[in-house]
């Protein structure tokens, strides 16, 4: 039986994607589906799972610790994304506009935290933010400002985590904004200048709409990543003090791997998935109004 050229091409295509697809099925699709069924069961990994229906979900919504972790995660996401976008856009604009000599150095320096290990970053910042011997308070004291309990105060700790997260991520967002800014035609800036527009008017009416696809991309990916914060909060504050930096992913980890409550942990994971899905859907719907296509 001879196969046609198009059939052969199709077979070759499927053969090439088969390894990746197999990996997708085994390591992504199957665990996601299995996790859903586990979320409907009570299972400590040693005994056979017992069907629990929606009991885990009901327990979850009645658990005050869940609401604490959710509000911490939402707070972290909101402020880290907002501040991150603002600062990275500002820096990208600054580098693009001033066209400094040595701007490559600044781009590299700002991008460096992105490639560092998050554990190493958290450990170093833990030292820097030590309320008594940390460098940050030492510098503040040198200019007459009293020490700040950066990671030891329930009121301050989450803000400190936001600060470290923004510092770490700013370079990545800046590089994307730089690429978007580079694609804005110079003629539009010239036209704007000829029309007598101020810098803000130029930015708001020319730059902002044209970089909106990049902004949308950064907003969506940053929100998704921020809702999954784990390493920073675990190393920097271990969820404390007094649960002020405990997040949903930490709650999943604790319930699944410390308390051996796999069903409950899976339920939390699915609720987190649902939250991220809803937020992303809302962002996509709203994007039609402000993202320039």
């Amino acid at each position: 039986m001879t196969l046609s050229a198009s059939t052969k091409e199709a077979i070759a295509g499927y053969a090439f994607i088969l390894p990746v697809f197999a990996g997708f099925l085994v390591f992504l699709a199957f665990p996601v589906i299995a996790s859903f069924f586990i979320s409907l069961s009570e299972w400590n990994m040693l005994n056979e799972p017992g069907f629990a229906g929606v009991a885990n979900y009901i327990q979850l919504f009645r658990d005050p610790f869940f609401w604490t972790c959710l509000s911490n995660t939402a707070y972290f996401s909101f402020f880290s994304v907002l501040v991150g976008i603002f600062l990275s856009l500002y820096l990208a604009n600054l580098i693009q506009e001033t066209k400094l000599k040595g701007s490559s150095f600044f781009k590299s320096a700002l991008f460096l935290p992105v490639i560092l290990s998050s554990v190493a970053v958290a450990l170093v910042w833990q030292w820097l933010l030590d309320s008594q011997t940390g460098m940050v308070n030492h510098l503040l004291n040198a200019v007459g400002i009293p020490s700040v309990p950066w990671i030891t105060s329930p009121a301050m700790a989450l803000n400190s985590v936001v600060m470290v997260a923004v510092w770490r991520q700013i370079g990545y967002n800046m590089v994307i904004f730089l690429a978007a800014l580079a694609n804005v035609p110079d003629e539009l800036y010239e036209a704007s200048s000829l029309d007598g527009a101020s810098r803000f008017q130029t930015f708001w009416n020319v730059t902002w709409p044209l970089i909106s696809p990049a902004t949308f991309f950064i907003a969506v990916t940053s929100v998704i990543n921020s809702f999954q914060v784990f390493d920073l909060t675990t190393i920097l504050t271990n969820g404390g003090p007094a649960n002020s930096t405990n997040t949903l992913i930490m709650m999943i980890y604790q319930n699944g791997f410390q308390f051996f409550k796999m069903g409950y942990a899976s339920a939390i994971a699915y609720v987190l998935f649902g939250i991220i899905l809803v937020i992303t859907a809302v962002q996509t719907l709203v994007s039609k109004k402000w993202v320039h296509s």
Partner: protein
Amino acid sequence: MVKRIGLVLLLLVGIGFGLSAEVTTIKYAFWGNPDAIGVEKDIIDAFEATHPDIKVTPVAVAYNDYHSKILILMAGGQAPDVMRIDSYFFQDFLKAGALKDISSLIKSSKVDLTKYYQSGLQDSVKDGKYYGLPWGVAPLYMFLNTKMFADAGVPLPKPDWTWNDFVALLPKFSKGEAETKTYGMGMAVTDLSGILPYMWGVGEDLFDNGRTKFTLNTPGASKKLDELSGYIKKGYFADPSIFTNADILTRYFAQNRIAMRTGAASDILSSQKIEGLDFVVMPFPGTAKFPRATVSKANTVGLYAKTKNEKAAWEFLQFLRAPGREGETLYMKAKRTPPAVDDPELWALYADPTKSPKNVATITKEINIKYGHLLPLRAGWLEIQGLMVPQLQKVFAGVVDGKTAMNEIAPQVNAILNKK
């Protein structure tokens, strides 16, 4: 010719099968660095050299993932035959029927249990039955900075010191401001073993005797929590929120900023590496009525309940943990875990006898006899700890008083205690 070669080959294959059939392979799981299993390899090599019919395959997993990995292996039918279990998880593993009752094996092999520190043995026992042999037996000592005591003109206390003696010492070390501030006591509130000694000294505890009712919300316990909160406000205790891990506590202690702290045997080793740091260890100060206020804890090495290689696994477990066997000596030489038996020679191998604290062996013995108190471990311990620690942190941050904080979580803790 071909026939001869064939016969020889057949003979060789037969011998191969015969040899391999005589060798039993067992799996031994422990936590550690999978890339550098160190003394565990030395122990395995030493065991295999004297037991050519048993091969031991190590299963090394980093601590944070270890117990969940063991559970996954069990769920997948790949459970190790011999496994180390942290006492925090011991009750959970027992409840799930993961560990084998080795009482009859201990009796038939005449393992002398009297040689162990008895407090360490209890963490391997349930309802009078033994489910493992102790590993890593050591109390939570009180470390006293001898330089700070000397500078303050205060003599070091004796092992029978009481809570009142301790409180009287606190103001003598609390001086200075900001970076130069020194404190009497450094206390980390990252787990319950840092808090319960204070409770035991006044006859309070986390649970009732049956470990089915939460009791840290009693008037006595609440009063003690508020008392500790008061010492933090006065500057006698360093702010516990600073000490998010043991390294920070060690750093403050080594920098002569806290005169007293609690610490485990591993903290002794890390502190001995610090040049110029001189300290002694003591039991935790109790009261005349309740002298047993020092945490005693040990981990367990046991056999999987459904192991198919019981004889070989038991042989290895004895080599690893039975008193007087090679495993204990090798662990001490490698400074991997403190002695499970009262033997000054083993202590000299574990902790450098030329460096402080030079009294560790004698104090450990006294703690075992007079001052030790077991943690009230039970199934759900870590979940309860997860609820307790943030509440305790709130109390010590002055956000809420002890009674309110404990009453807030009492229903949830009791629900965990009474879960079937």
